[in-house]
């Protein structure tokens, strides 16, 4: 056959790229899941939280000159407050309406947030300086930058922290209980309202976190949130709509598939191929790889 297998270093380089974006999609998928778990709402504005997180970090560090260790918590706190405001102002008025109204409300939210970001950050792309200054590490001829390790490490850290939260804390257990049986949970005195608020605050904050860690690697504009949100949803669907581990693994799968498609097939058709896989996937296995997760979402 004429086609030669590419060198191992090239394959690895593409894999690192895929894992980086995969980690980002994974964190975003987990952020979608935090909201979905309790409220059963998938927020179409999640991509905007991602973008605004990254853009806010750019402004705080580049323009306001805040150090990174101060800027990141500020953005996270702001995002959590935004999440609370959204739950209060946008979601609870339509909570009892049909799913169509709820979906459209989150779409409206996404339009409004894009519209808010446009006058603030303009149409141009923004980026953030790498979090640490270090020479790239060489692995079998491929180069890995420190930021890539930070992105992947963040995804792993998010998983570990959520695992501890959901298995070791009363609040986490309550959240799993409420996800599994909302009425039963209310009967034993769990406030579903309160859990809803926690879900939104943490979901928006995690979306912003994904945007912040990836901001040094990619260019962000006010409108670049839609595709990452859709890919995060694909990751979440592959993961079975209920499992944190599934969402992260789904994220890595989508990121890797995308990177290899861009690297070896076609950069123009990469999105089409990723979507094609989703549609096939929904046909063959609508419940996801990690389906039948009756453990309340771990």
């Amino acid at each position: 056959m004429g086609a030669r297998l590419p060198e191992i270093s090239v394959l690895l380089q593409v894999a690192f790229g895929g894992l980086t974006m995969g980690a980002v999609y994974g964190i975003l998928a987990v952020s979608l899941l935090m909201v979905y778990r309790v409220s059963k709402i998938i927020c179409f504005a999640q991509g905007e939280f991602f973008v605004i997180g990254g853009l806010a970090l750019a402004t705080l560090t580049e323009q306001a000159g805040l150090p990174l260790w101060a800027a990141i918590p500020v953005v996270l706190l702001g995002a959590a407050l935004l999440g609370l405001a959204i739950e209060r102002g946008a979601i609870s008025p339509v909570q009892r309406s049909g799913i169509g109204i709820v979906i459209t409300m989150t779409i409206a939210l996404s339009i409004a947030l894009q519209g808010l970001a446009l006058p603030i950050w303009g149409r141009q792309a923004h980026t953030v300086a790498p979090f640490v200054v270090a020479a790239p590490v060489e692995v079998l001829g491929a180069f890995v930058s420190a930021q890539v390790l930070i992105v992947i490490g963040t995804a792993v850290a998010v998983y570990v922290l959520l695992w501890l939260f959901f298995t070791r804390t009363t609040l986490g257990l309550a959240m799993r209980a409420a996800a599994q049986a909302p009425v039963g949970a209310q009967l034993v005195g769990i406030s579903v309202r309160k859990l809803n608020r926690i879900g939104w605050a943490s979901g928006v904050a995690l979306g912003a976190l994904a945007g912040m860690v990836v901001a040094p690697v990619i260019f962000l504009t006010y409108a670049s949130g839609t595709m990452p949100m859709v890919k995060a949803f694909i990751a979440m669907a592959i993961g079975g709509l209920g499992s944190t581990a599934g969402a992260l693994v789904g994220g890595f799968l989508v990121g890797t598939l995308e990177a290899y498609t861009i690297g070896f097939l076609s950069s123009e058709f990469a999105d089409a191929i990723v979507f094609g896989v989703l549609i096939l996937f929904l046909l063959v296995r609508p419940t996801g790889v990690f389906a039948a997760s009756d453990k309340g979402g771990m």
Partner: protein
Amino acid sequence: MRQALAGAGGYIALTLLPLAFGSLADYYAEILTVVAVFAILAVSIDLVVGLAGQITLGHAAFFAVGAYGSAILTTRYGWPHLAAAAAAAAAASLVAYVVGRAVLHLRGYYLAMATLGLTGVVYTLLIGLRELAGGAAGMGGIPHLRIFGFVLDDPLHYYAVVLAVAVLVVCVCRRIARSAYGRALIAIHGDEETATALGIRVAQYKINVFVFAAALASIAGTLFAHHLRFIAPDDFTIGQSIHILVMAFLGGIGTVFGPVLGAVVLQLLPEFSHHFKDYQTLSTGLVLMLVLAFFPGGLYGLLRMLLARIPRAGRAGAPAAAD
């Protein structure tokens, strides 16, 4: 009969509307042509969203199939324009059928995301297919619409034709909404299990209405392509799908007239607010949020509510006027 007369009168009045702007008649005819195209899109998406209750974000994809189908067949292969339009509509229906079979059994979020994915796929294909579709730069040189030997190169004439199609689409959709078929769709919207129990073949109904709406969107695409005579992928983005859905919700879903109102408002607004260009997206989003939270009936519902109040006020005032 009275309704038909009112409709005909309304059509004639709307056709002559651009003439009211005197020397700017051509300019306003062109703007109103685009409004009519979007009215077709909004009314057709309302069949799927408002009647059947299925949230789709795939309308820009079918719009694109119509626009690019007509553009490619007429410019590259010299097809007669009506045949090209029919072929494009058939292609859009086929895509809708295949995709619909795959995704319509999915509910809520899955359907919304899968149709969003469809728009994404079509958009990337338009950019990728450089030879056939002109890639990101788009394709120009699309001829004026030519039917039965008449070349519609006057903006006023073309507007009259597009408006006629739009009025026809509105009438047909209104008929559908009030028919047994429409009531079955509304039953599906309410509760699929109950609808099934009532003997409604839910899957069949959903796919039929999805395919029909796709064909209408394709016709809108054909009219759009022959109007601008230059089309580019940027007219067929995910954002465009969202824009169409917003029109339906803003105007009031499930009401047929509501989405028309939504299309008129959202398409005309930018004409009057050039100065606030950067704030347009923000205001659209906020207005939509307010409508969803407080006026689920949309602008049309609000209008009807206000109109219902006026006669009562009139009646209350009548005796006073008598003495």
